[in-house]
């Protein structure tokens, strides 16, 4: 598949075919499903989200119906012709591989391997290059379609994790997942989220994502899919300049489902007005000094 355009990020709205189709029809070039595991999972007790300093903190907790039930939704996406990437997780490389190999039956464009949900037990995988290598290798061996590794900004060295994913055969890396965070209610004097800890997304994480994409672009040769706090075309241009070939938008859908087309049009105008012929021409341009 060609890695370009403006995609729905995993975890937002992605639990049924119906709403994913709606997001695609509203302008997302590709939709990434919610992360799917081997068995049904309720997720964390509420509150599962709150706001903070212009951003969102969520602790949904990998809610999903399990791959068997979700296959029905995936087949419907296929029938409707909605281009989709299947996000999967597992408690071990083998488990992730088995979910992915079940999922490819529905012919996703690619598998996005969630190695980095910061508020669930799989959150630690993408902190460690060796573990990341094992997960990516296991999934690559199990499926024929492209495999993307979704990385965490909570790792002390995201580029070494990215390099491990690339060595294991990842066809692209996705950066970044949410940033581990917490809010405390000062009236009740207790953490707000049911899970206590969650992941920060939205505008406050944007510069963290730009830094991660920039560093990864400099040290990897596979494409980077940028995600984190993009809500405007200016954000998207900046992330392309850092090195993102495609961009995922998640929290930005709170500004309306037309965010994908608004961003795309703005970037196209920028590209034309600055004398380039294609968005691909500006990818990674900020790397030169």
């Amino acid at each position, binding site marked *: 598949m060609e890695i370009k355009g403006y995609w729905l990020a995993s975890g937002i*709205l992605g639990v049924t075919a119906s709403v994913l*189709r*709606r997001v695609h029809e509203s302008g997302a070039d590709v939709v990434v499903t919610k992360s799917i595991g081997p068995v049904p999972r309720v*997720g964390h*007790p509420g509150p599962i*989200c709150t706001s903070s300093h212009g951003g969102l903190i969520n602790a949904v907790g990998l*809610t*999903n119906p399990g791959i068997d039930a979700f296959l029905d939704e995936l087949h419907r996406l296929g029938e409707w012709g909605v281009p989709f990437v299947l996000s999967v997780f597992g408690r071990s490389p083998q488990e992730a591989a088995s979910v992915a190999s079940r999922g490819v039956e529905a012919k996703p464009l690619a598998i996005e391997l969630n190695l980095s949900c910061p508020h669930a037990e799989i959150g630690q995988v993408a902190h460690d290059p060796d573990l990341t290598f094992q997960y990516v290798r296991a999934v690559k061996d199990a499926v024929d379609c492209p495999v993307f590794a979704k990385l965490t900004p909570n790792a002390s060295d995201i580029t070494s994790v990215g390099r491990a994913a690339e060595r294991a055969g990842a066809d692209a890396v996705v950066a970044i997942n949410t940033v581990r965070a917490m809010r405390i209610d000062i009236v009740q004097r207790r953490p707000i989220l049911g899970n206590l800890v969650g992941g920060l997304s*939205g505008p406050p994480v944007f510069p963290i994502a730009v830094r991660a994409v920039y560093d990864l672009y400099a040290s990897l040769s596979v494409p980077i899919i940028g995600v984190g706090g993009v809500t405007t075309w200016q954000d998207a241009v900046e992330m392309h300049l850092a090195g993102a070939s495609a961009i995922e938008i998640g929290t930005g859908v709170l500004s309306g489902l037309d965010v994908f087309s608004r961003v795309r049009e703005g970037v196209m105008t920028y590209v034309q007005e600055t004398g380039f012929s294609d968005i691909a021409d500006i990818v990674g341009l900020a790397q030169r000094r």
Partner: protein
Amino acid sequence: MDIELSTGRPRSVAISRVVRENIRDVTLFFRRQPDSPTAAPGQFFMVWVPDVDEIPLSASWSDDEHIGLTVRPVGEATQRLVRMRPGDYIGIRGPFGRSFSVTGDAAIVVGGGVGMAPLRPLVYALLASLKQVTVLIAARTRDELLFHDEMLRIAESDSRLRTQVATDDGSLGFHGLATDCLTALLEQQTADVIYACGPERMMYEVYRIALRHEIPIQLSLERYMKCGCGLCGSCALDPTGHLVCLDGPVFTGSTLASIVEFGKYSRDATGARIDEIR
């Protein structure tokens, strides 16, 4: 993009008053902060019950000073809520969702069980804009009728309001289902709009009756909800992807005509389809 606003300005409030409505239902009131909006009829709040969960609850009262939420104890969070006392804290986000719209000149309002909660403010709004209103309150038994005494009191002094009662066990009013009572009612009087909230089986039947009589309808739907603000997708409807939290909870008959799952199935907390409606 204002995420604070989109997520419903999360805040903690103290319960200011607790009113027992019948043998099951309790209304909790809290003071509205001056900078937060009032709730329109049909809108809901996400209510954080400390140590338990966060659940959606429709506003059953909203004025400049107070907001009321009527709770029926059916799960852990609601059981905790009905035991709350003035001074106890809950977290609040909202109000969320699309409200009922006041249209027509003669309305029938059908409330089944705790479904009367969002319909109470609607009845006041309808009367405030000079409508003829018939409110049909249904419950399993007379002790579970919600806001019946209050509606009777209003009807005593305001001839524009008529009340009708249906109980499954016949302990008061019409002996039988709300929908059979509605059918009987429509033989005696007409209406140019029907509003309903209650068990989905009831609402689906009300919808079909309204369709037969060619009367426009507005229904408040319920689906499993986690975020309340258009992020998680738990409450998405098939096959259109309408979100109950953002595009509802109040839907018109013409929208419902395109929702294949209405009256047929819903989804559980994991997102899996269940052939079950409340």
